């Protein structure tokens, strides 16, 4: 499935080859209705994906210590807002260049996103037989914000605010849109047949790779690994918030995957969207139950944080192909994601990679699994193409992220000093606490 690409710059409609498949079914409804329903799908999907920003904020606020909660929340609202503006100025047109590729199949166009005029008529709409440009833009920009949110959780509790936000700006303006143009924008990866329905690789693994690179360059939090090399758990401040955040993400994911059907103007599309909702839900359930049972068996007590990560890993796993699997297959694909989390979290600790909220297992490793699982239920995808595409995206994001992180480190430093880290970023960098009436965490 390839996303609809529209040229915001010139307003010309670009139909990429893969889109035809989604619209094979004869349209029995008037074109006006198709336009309205498709637009509505993007708008509803867009605000559901927007709500995932709240999910990430709550998940991260719950999994950091009380002394860093205000900072984590500040980063979350700032990163979302910066990503939204950068996507408007550069990202959208870079990702969907239409005919305007600067380097065909590899590097899109420069320009700001332009919407249709007020009160546009059918004759003047950018794509009367599809959907409004504004809805497409609104929906797409929520995905870049998701990618940026993934990074903040991993590097929490030790990264400085401003270098982090500069990284987010570059991620949203350049790194994410360039690699996304290769597939959803009609570039090289779409030409070789890469299949990533809603972005296990394009959104989640990209955030995961950027987070992993950041964690490696930043180093672990003070006290996370002791002198003997053993992992010292640093429990989160509020598991109620972490659980709320997970449920919010789960809800938002219906928009993330469901609206990635990209059309709701036919019986087939409406039925497919319903199927995607059901598969998305059952994959999350599979991931949560797998993590629940596995943590009980391995550790003698279920670990809530693992179950939360398991549900999210299930969601990431099904994101590359939420349409073709049966309910049973979707549950199993999600369950494998849950298993991945329970093993990957301690594995990262063995490698001394400090990932505060488990974003690398959830978004990167489960994202890779989900992308590789596409050919299991979709005959149109090939294992080899999936693997090559994962590698191309991975290498690009790791290299570009590493360059940005290293430059930021050299120019302004990316890590707070020891005293600030121990006292907490809230008081040291912001001068305010999330829970001022409680004892220090």
């Amino acid at each position, binding site marked *: 499935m390839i996303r609809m690409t529209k040229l915001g710059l010139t307003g010309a409609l670009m139909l990429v080859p893969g889109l035809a498949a989604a619209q094979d079914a004869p349209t029995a409804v008037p074109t006006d209705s198709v336009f309205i329903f498709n637009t509505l799908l993007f708008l509803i999907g867009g605000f559901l994906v927007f709500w995932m920003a709240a999910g990430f904020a709550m998940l991260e606020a719950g999994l950091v210590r009380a002394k860093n909660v205000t900072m984590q929340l500040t980063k979350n609202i700032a990163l979302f807002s910066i990503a939204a503006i950068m996507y408007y100025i550069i990202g959208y047109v870079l990702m969907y260049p239409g005919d305007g590729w600067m380097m065909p199949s590899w590097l899109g166009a420069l320009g700001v996103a332009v919407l249709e005029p007020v009160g546009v008529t059918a004759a003047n709409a950018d794509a009367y037989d599809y959907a409004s440009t504004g809805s497409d833009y609104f929906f797409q920009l929520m995905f870049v914000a998701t990618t940026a949110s993934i990074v903040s959780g991993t590097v929490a509790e030790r990264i400085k605010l401003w270098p982090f936000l500069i990284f987010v700006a570059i991620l949203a303006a350049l790194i994410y849109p360039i690699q996304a143009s290769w597939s959803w924008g009609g570039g090289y990866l779409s030409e070789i047949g890469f299949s990533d329905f809603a972005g296990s690789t394009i959104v989640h693994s990209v955030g995961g790779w950027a987070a992993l690179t950041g964690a490696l360059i930043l180093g672990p939090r003070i006290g996370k690994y002791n002198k003997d090399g053993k*992992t010292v758990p640093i429990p989160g401040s509020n598991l109620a918030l972490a659980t709320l955040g997970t449920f919010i993400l789960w809800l938002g994911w219906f928009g993330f995957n469901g609206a990635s059907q990209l059309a709701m103007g036919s019986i087939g599309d409406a039925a497919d969207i319903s199927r995607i909702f059901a598969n998305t839900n059952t994959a999350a359930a599979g991931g949560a139950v797998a993590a629940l049972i596995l943590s009980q068996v391995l*550790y003698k007590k279920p670990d809530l*944080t*693992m179950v939360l990560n398991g549900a999210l890993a299930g969601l990431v796993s099904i994101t590359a192909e939420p349409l073709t699997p049966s309910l049973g297959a979707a549950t199993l694909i999600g369950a494998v994601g849950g298993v991945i989390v329970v093993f990957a979290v*301690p594995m990262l*600790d063995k490698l001394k990679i400090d990932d505060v909220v488990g974003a690398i297992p959830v978004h990167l490793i489960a994202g890779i699994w989900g992308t590789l699982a596409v050919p299991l239920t979709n005959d149109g995808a090939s294992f080899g193409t999936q693997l090559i595409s994962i590698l191309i995206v991975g290498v690009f994001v790791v290299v570009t992220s590493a360059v940005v992180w290293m430059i930021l480190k050299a120019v302004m430093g990316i890590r707070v000093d020891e005293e600030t880290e121990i006292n907490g970023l809230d008081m040291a960098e912001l001068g305010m606490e999330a829970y001022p009436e409680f004892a220090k965490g």
Partner: protein
Amino acid sequence: MLQVQTGGLSAADHKGIKVKLVIATIKPFKLEEVREALTDIGVRGMMVTEIKGFGAQSGHTEIYRGAEYAVNFVPKIKLEVAVNDAMADQVAEAITAAAKTGKIGDGKIFVLDLAQAMRVRTGETGEDAL
């Protein structure tokens, strides 16, 4: 009655009645039972503090996100009860009876002599302050 009782004792004798402080550490979930047992035998006040510590029970290990960690200090409740000398043994017995589970970690009881007790409102001292 009151006059007969105080009349029989000189002021010095009165001050001589000893007051003891019973300190007990118990499992937190036993607090309510212990409070009932003590009020039943006439104890009219106590101080309660949430503490952490270790004794024969020592610590134990837990696992968070796959990493094992030691819980070296176990949560307990500390009770402090000031009573007259004659009641001290009874108080200790009541606490023992109510707080006992038979498993390791039930707690300890210490009995100390109190040098002085005073009621802030009236300035009464010794047993009268209890």
